[in-house]
């Protein structure tokens, strides 16, 4: 992947999140503090505004810069979490991209998110989409498989009991709602898949 392709992917991810900001906020109003969409929109609008500068270097520098922007601009817990994801992608972005190095890089980034959030898969969070994404990449999955798995995993957060994050305050009342972080992760992965498929 060159910097032009990476820039297109970031642009697409940002626009996808911004387009779904109201939906994310509605999901968060049900089980969180109702600011996920607003916060993510603010963060990704800052990314779009700075994209020329952020994309002035290599792919690693772009992802790292996106992460730093999200950390500084988002404002909720999702800022440091998604910020960590992109910063770690940037730090460990491989010189030679293939199925193995992509998997290792994504796994390291998702592990960093888990460490930052002191969380793990199964707690009704973004990790319930991000960890399965890594599992799919480990098998060399194509975009169609990745998209299907991440959609199913986001939906699978609906019956889950939240044990981490704001939703955990609700205990069993968190059951029956789609997790906003799982949904935003799914949206980003879909945006990346769209870019890759359009590029053929």
């Amino acid at each position, binding site marked *: 992947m060159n910097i032009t392709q990476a820039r297109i992917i970031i642009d697409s991810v940002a626009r996808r999140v911004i387009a779904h900001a109201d939906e994310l906020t509605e999901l968060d109003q049900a089980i969180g*503090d109702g*600011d996920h969409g*607003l*916060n993510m929109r*603010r963060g990704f609008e800052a990314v779009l505004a700075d994209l020329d500068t952020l994309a002035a270097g290599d792919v690693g520098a772009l992802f790292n810069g996106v992460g730093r922007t999200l*950390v*500084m*601009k*988002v*404002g*909720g*817990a*999702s*800022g*440091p*979490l998604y*910020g*960590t994801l992109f910063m770690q992608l940037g730090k460990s972005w491989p010189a030679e991209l293939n199925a193995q190095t992509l998997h290792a890089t994504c796994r390291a980034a998702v592990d960093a998110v888990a460490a*930052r*959030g002191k969380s793990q898969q199964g707690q009704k969070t973004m990790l319930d989409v991000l960890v399965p994404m890594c599992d799919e990449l480990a098998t060399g999955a194509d975009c169609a498989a990745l998209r299907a798995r991440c959609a199913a995993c986001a939906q699978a957060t609906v019956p889950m009991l939240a044990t981490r*994050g*704001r939703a955990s305050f609700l205990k069993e009342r968190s059951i029956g709602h789609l997790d906003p972080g799982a949904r935003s992760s799914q949206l980003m992965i879909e945006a990346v898949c769209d870019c890759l498929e359009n590029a053929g």
Partner: protein
Amino acid sequence: MSNVGIVIVSHSPDVAKGAADMVRQMVGQGIPLAWTGGNPGGGLGTSVEGILGAIDAAWSDAGVAILVDMGGAETNSEMAIEMLEPARQGKVVICNAPVVEGAVMAATEAWSGSDLATVKRTAEELNHDLD
């Protein structure tokens, strides 16, 4: 100043400022103190940039103890600490304590000249009182 500094981080600027007002009235001017609240858009939330600014404002060579209210305030504070220059990172800690009471207790301990670990421990003793 040689006393440990105190930083108060809340989702609400009103809560953060109010807690800081209580510290100033109860403990006085003998410690570096700063507060921050609200997200980068001006709504409820916390801001890494704001937290970094507050750490700077309350900086002491003896270190800085941060009191946070919940969730993102803690995560953003951890992120802010990691973004400090390496020499400063080890001198900033987050106290696992209620934000208002913890700030007053930590500030009282800091004012007596205690080191950072003692300030943190004193604030966190509140948790045992609550059990």
